[in-house]
Each structure stands twice: as C-alpha cells, then as structure tokens.
C-alpha cells in the first residue's frame, strides 16, 4: 500500500494499551483494570475459547495441532530469519520447527505444558554469584555475556506466589520459609506458602524414575504443574477442574478446564470489567513516539481488513511474545540496537534459548501406558540445576533439571526406538510396535547462557506482509552449553540405567542450533533487564529506560536463561511490574528507577 494514501484513523485515547494478549497481557490487563484504568488489548490473532476452539470432542488431534500448526503463529504471514553466526546469511524459518510460536487470545498460554517453575535465587545473580564462587574466568570464558538481573528472588517471591494462586499450581513445597520439606524440591528458594493444590498422581514411568533417582542419592519430587490435581477456585473466582491425563496438553488446548491458561484463570474475570476492551485480528505495526523520542503517544495498528488505526495511550505495554516485543522495540526506535562487533547497544542483546537433550528408556517387562500423560506430569531431580552442585573443574556454568516425564503418547511424535533402528521399513515398524507401550523419555532441560555473538536485530533482506523488516536471529550453542549438556545427559543416563531397563538411548545436544526439530519454545533475551541503562533495555520493573511509558513484558527481559521453563518467572515479573505501575507510576508517571 502506498504510504501517502494510507488513512489512519485516530481512536479515542485510553490509559493503557496492551500489545498482545497471552499470559502477560491478561495478567497486566487485570491488574491495570482493577486499578481503574481504561485498558484496550490488541491481539493480532483470533478469539479462542475452550468449548468452541479446543473442545474435548476434537482437541485430541495430533495431526491438526502439532503437525499442521492450527493454534500456532502462521509463518506464511510472519516469520523471522535465522543463522548460526554473523558469517552466514540469515534465511527465513519457512516452517515452524525448533519452537512453536503462539498466536490468538491466550497465545502460548493456551498450548503450553503448564510447567510452573521458579528460578533459583542464584539464577538472578548469575554473574556475581558464579564470579564469586568460581572466579572471573567462569563468567567470561567462551565470550559469555551473562549479567545479574537487577531483581532478586526475594523481590519476586510474592509475585511467584501470586501466579501460583492464580493457576492453582499443583505441587509439593520443598522449602517453606527456609524450612526444607520432605517430598519437595530441597534446592528451591524459600516459598511463602505451600502450593495451592497437591501434586498430580504419578504414572508408572515417572514413579520408576523417582525410585531410581532416590536410589542414587538424588532428591526426586513431583513437577510443579498447571495441570491441576483437583478442582480449584482462584482469587478472581475463576474455576479449574482436575486433569484427566488425556495426553494432549502441550501444543494443544485443554478441553476440560484443567490447564491453567488465560482463558481458565483470568478472562472470565477480566472480560466482565467495563473498563476493558479486547480487539482481535489487530496487529500493532509500531509504537509511536513524540518527536524527541522520549515518550510514547500510543501505537499504530492494522486490522485484518487492512484498516489502519492510531490508538493513543498513556501507557504502552508490550505483552506479545519475546520475538515480537524485541522487534517492535527495534522497529519503533526505542533503545539503541545491539552491535555484536563492538558490544555496544542493548536492544537485541543476549538472546538465549534452552539447551535440551534426552535419554530414552526401553523396558521389556513393563507396560508404561505413555498415553496417560499431562503437560507437566513428571518426577524431577534438581540436583544438577543452576548452582545446586559444585562446578569446580567442570568448565561450564549452569545446569538442568532432569525429569522422568510423560506428557503423552502421541504416536506421530512420540514413538521411541532403540539406537540403530532405521527410520523406516519393517524394522522400524516392528520397533514401534514393540516399544511404544514400554518406553519413555527422560528430558534434560538445560540453561542457556548469553553470549556475545547471540543476538536479535532486523533482517536487511526479508520483509513481512506489512513491508516491515523481519526479525533476524543469530544464535548458536556455545562450548559452555555443550559441556553442560553432556555432563547433564550423563547424569540422566545414570538414572536411566538405575531403572534396570533393557536398554537406553542417549539423545545428546550435538552440533549447531538447528531450526527443524522441535526443541522448546523458550526464547529469551533481547529486551534484557538490569540496573543500568548502559547494559539493559528495561529496568527491574520492565520499564524502558529510554521511553518510560513503554513497558516490555516477557522472557525478553531475561539476561540469560536458567534451566527451567520460563512462564513462572515471566508471570512473576509481570505482577512485579504491575504492582509498581499501580502503586507508584500512576501517581507520578516517569522513570521508576533513576
């Protein structure tokens, strides 16, 4: 469309506009509306709800949801380019693979697993903690660019707790106000209260894993989960049911209200608020700034009919996914873009991911019924995560949780065959028939430190349907990650062998980051937080240093990624920011950290 001919309709001003309506948008919307603000949420995907769009009658459809991406972002309209390093030309991710991006109301909160973790206290001080314990080299080897967060576990604990109560998280506390509790994770930071609901009941494979891990002297505990063990009413009055272990959880929407999602936990309350408006099929093109660039006036968006609007707002909340938030910052000229050559600039800096590997376990004599599963149905050990173990002489920092996990037995994706089995032919079919009921996978969910060469910027070649540059991702695993992952995969293999199986198969994290096989949708960094504008995009309240009425939510704020699923921390950061906005910013709009 010719820019001169584009007519932009200016809408009535609102107090706050939310750009994207998944977990962070829903939580922030609820908090701001409760504070009396007039809030508009702009979501580029469609409306979605349990009974109409992922009902029990059709949600269990592996082809449609997992392989045809029915609930995911459609890369035909918006994708990004990817390369492993700056010597390569970045090319479009032409089909979703390594990560499965969300879209629509609820977004990734609809098709996530429901794995609800808190990061370790030491995870928030990655640089200073490891430097103090292992020396300067530990945090600067391999060109690592790890940083402290500018926020501590203690700061966030009340907000982690708030998210647990919103979701009704099922689990067993391991550390209640400093007292170690039997049955929980003894390595976790202190919790102010027990989980709202008891842990899920474990199926056979996670039970065997837990027994073997305990036998090796580790500390197994049930995975904390937003797949609820029993029905629950949250503080907003929203109700969740007990999970029926259908095995179609992650990558799928939950049909029976038993997975915590924006739909089940927040929307019933928020949608009834008279000061809340949701607009779907509306994609924000950029955040508008005053001529001096120091303040946002609102956002410009286009709807699915191609009509363009300017929505004036006093506060702009970037509540889209990491990759969209960073891209909008870059497209809008908020903050200085990061340059990997000089190390100058901040926007796009410290993009990180998650380092995944696994060990398959095969039995002859045990029927495991892998189809009885849930997104976060697992027995876990945290003995080798973060700095829960001595890294002296290991040559890496970080770690992983190791989980005997059964999320389901969806056969296109989740048939495990022993080492040496061909991928097709009679031999493959016989292996599938023999092992389906008798095998499972131990997953190793590893941290990913930030690195000077891993970053996000705008692609010079490829453009989206609106004519805007695509985001460009430059990323590869570093030696720190490979060493960590090998060490952790070996620990997982020890547990696997202790289960006395017929055989095991190690799926190590080898080679460069590959865009094709699914790994995890835990992209982090690029809009990182910190205690000073020279090395971060946002302050501890997720407020942009350069444009204080713009707040950037989500895992983009992570200076590096810990060995846990990010959603718990993403939600806690959102509540933390919302608290500061509603208690301090509203009275005195301006920088919350000088």
């Amino acid at each position: 469309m010719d820019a001169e001919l584009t007519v932009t309709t200016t809408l009535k001003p609102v107090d706050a506009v939310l750009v994207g309506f998944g977990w962070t948008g829903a939580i922030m919307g609820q908090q701001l509306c409760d504070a009396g603000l007039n809030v508009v949420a702009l979501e580029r995907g469609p409306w979605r709800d349990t009974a109409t769009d992922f009902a029990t009658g059709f949600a269990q459809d592996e082809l449609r949801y997992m392989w045809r991406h029915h609930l995911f972002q459609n890369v035909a309209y918006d994708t990004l380019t990817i390369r492993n390093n700056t010597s390569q030309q970045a090319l479009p991710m032409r089909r979703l693979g390594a990560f499965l991006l969300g879209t629509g109301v609820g977004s990734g909160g609809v098709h996530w697993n429901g794995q609800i973790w808190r990061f370790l206290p030491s995870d928030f001080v990655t640089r200073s903690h490891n430097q103090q314990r292992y020396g300067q080299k530990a945090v600067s080897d391999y060109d690592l660019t790890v940083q402290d967060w500018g926020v501590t576990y203690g700061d966030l604990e009340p907000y982690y707790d708030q998210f647990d109560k919103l979701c009704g998280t099922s689990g067993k506390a391991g550390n209640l106000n400093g007292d170690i509790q039997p049955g929980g994770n003894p390595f976790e930071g202190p919790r102010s209260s027990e989980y709202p609901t008891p842990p899920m009941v474990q199926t056979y494979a996670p039970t065997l894993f837990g027994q073997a891990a305990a036998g090796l002297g580790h500390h197994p505990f049930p995975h904390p989960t937003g797949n609820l063990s029993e029905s629950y009413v949250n503080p907003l009055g929203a109700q969740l049911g007990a999970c029926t272990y259908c095995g179609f959880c992650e990558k799928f929407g939950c049909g029976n209200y038993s997975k915590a999602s924006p739909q089940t936990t927040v929307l019933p309350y928020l949608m009834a608020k008279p000061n809340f408006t949701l607009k779907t099929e509306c994609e924000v093109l950029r955040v508008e700034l005053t001529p001096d660039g120091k303040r946002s006036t609102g956002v410009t968006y286009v709807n699915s009919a191609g009509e363009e609007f300017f929505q004036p707002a006093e506060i702009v909340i970037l509540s889209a996914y990491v990759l969209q938030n960073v891209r909008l910052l870059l497209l809008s000229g908020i903050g200085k873009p990061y340059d990997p050559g000089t190390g100058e600039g901040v926007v796009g800096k410290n993009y990180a991911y998650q380092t995944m590997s696994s060990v398959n376990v095969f039995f002859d004599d045990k029927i495991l019924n892998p189809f009885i599963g849930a997104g976060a149905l697992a027995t876990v050990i945290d003995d080798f995560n973060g700095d829960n173990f001595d890294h002296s002489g290991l040559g890496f920092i970080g770690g992983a949780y190791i989980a005997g996990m059964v999320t389901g037995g969806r056969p296109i994706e989740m048939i495990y065959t022993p080492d040496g089995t061909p991928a097709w032919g009679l031999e493959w079919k016989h292996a599938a028939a023999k092992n389906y009921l008798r095998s499972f996978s131990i997953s190793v969910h590893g941290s990913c430190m930030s690195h000077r060469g891993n970053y996000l910027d705008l692609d010079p070649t490829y453009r989206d349907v609106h004519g805007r540059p695509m985001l460009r991702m430059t990323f590869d695993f570093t030696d720190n990650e490979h060493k960590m992952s090998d060490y952790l995969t070996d620990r997982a293999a020890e547990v696997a062998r202790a289960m006395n199986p017929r055989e095991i198969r190690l799926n190590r994290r080898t080679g460069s980051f590959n865009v094709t096989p699914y790994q995890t949708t835990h992209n982090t960094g690029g809009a990182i937080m910190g205690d000073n504008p020279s090395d971060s995009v946002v302050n501890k309240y997720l407020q942009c240093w350069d444009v204080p009425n713009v707040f950037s939510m989500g895992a983009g704020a992570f200076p590096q990624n810990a060995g846990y699923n990010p959603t718990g921390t993403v939600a806690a950061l959102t509540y933390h920011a919302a608290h500061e906005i509603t208690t301090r910013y509203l009275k005195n709009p301006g920088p919350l950290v000088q």
Partner: protein
Amino acid sequence: MAAAAIHDGELGAPAQTFRGSVPWREGTADVPPGVSGPGYVYFEPAEAAFIEAAVGRLIPNDQVGPGAIEAGVPFFLDRQLAGPFGRGDHYYLGGPWPKGTPEQGYQSRFSPAQLYRAAIAAIDSYVGATFDRAVFSKLATDEQDKVLKGLESGEIGLDGGVDARSFFAMLLQNTKEGYFSDPIYGGNRDMAAWKMIGFPGAHYDYKEWVSRHGERVPYPPVGLKGRPGWTQS
C-alpha cells in the same frame, strides 16, 4: 470492507471487538477438517504409482501390523496435498531462496504439493536414467529401497531444483502422519496402526488408570468420529 476469508491464524478472520463478557454462540465448534470422497484428486496416475510403491516400502505390511498402503496412506497424502497443507498455507515461501545451511531447514520455493510433483518427476527421471526400467514403481523392492536410501542420505541428486533430502524427509514424515493420525483424515484405516502399538486414540479420561501401574488399559481405540462400538446393533 472486503469479505475476509476465515483463517486459522493471524490475519484474515474479521477484526472483532469484545467488551463486557466472554463471547459464545450456541452450536459453534472449530470442527476438524476431515476428508471424504473416492479416488485421488491431486495425484496424477504416474504420481499415484510412485506414492503407492514408495510408502509401501517406508511402512511395509506384515502380520505385526498394517503397511502404509493397507492404512490408506496414499489417500491421506492425496487429500493433504490437495488441501491447505499442500498449498503451503503454513509455510513462508517468499524469496530470495538461497540453499542455506542444513541447520536452516526447509529453504525451497516449492509448496509441499509442488515439491511432491517436482520430486516424483525428478525421481522417475533419475530411475529412468539409472535403471533399465522407466519408473520407480516398476523397480524390484530391493531396488526401490536402494533409491529411497539414496534420497534419504542425499547421495542421489535430483534435477528440477529438488533437494532430495528435503523431499524424502517430508515424504517420510507425511507417511507416518497418514499412518498414525485420526482416521477422519483418510489414513490409519480401521485405526489399525493404533491397535498395533496399543494407543487408545482420542480417549480423554484416564483418571482411573493413573496409578494402576503396569496394567493394560482396556479402552479400544477411538477416533474423533467414533469407533465401531458406537453404532453396532
């Protein structure tokens, strides 16, 4: 406003404004796009011959369980390629199109349907030049296996801008999809592939079986549109 086609994603469904309550309308459902009708609608006869030969080697039939042919995989593939998947509705196909590194994944200009068409022609052309029989489907099974292995490893190069490994990976993936997906998509006939491995399909409630470790769950496989037990007199 142009009539916006409904769309399963970001752009295309009509923009809507919601306020005051969670919307809902009786009788609505995002119904799965099942397939129907006889015969092939996408494959030309020569393509059908290739597909039936190839998927029969990828998943052969024996007493353990059905082969891909017996499970209806060729019919499944035909309907997939004739529909949104074949058109690449969830692929970004814009240029430029450098080959890229293996880590950068699919980098073809072809939609899946176009890739199948071009690849099958290129494979038959390769077979014609290499063996003394004209097309893949006429080869002996051990020769077919050899060609498939050559495509899988990339040792066989193909004309027409087709990346052999990309095509093989897609064919194998789609074959397994047709073998194990819900029968409404035309494959997994009689849910025989699910029976072979012991997967109960679209059953939703296993609450009673969670702690019954090591026991066989008695539910017969069920698809989204049911099972024989729903209609037997």
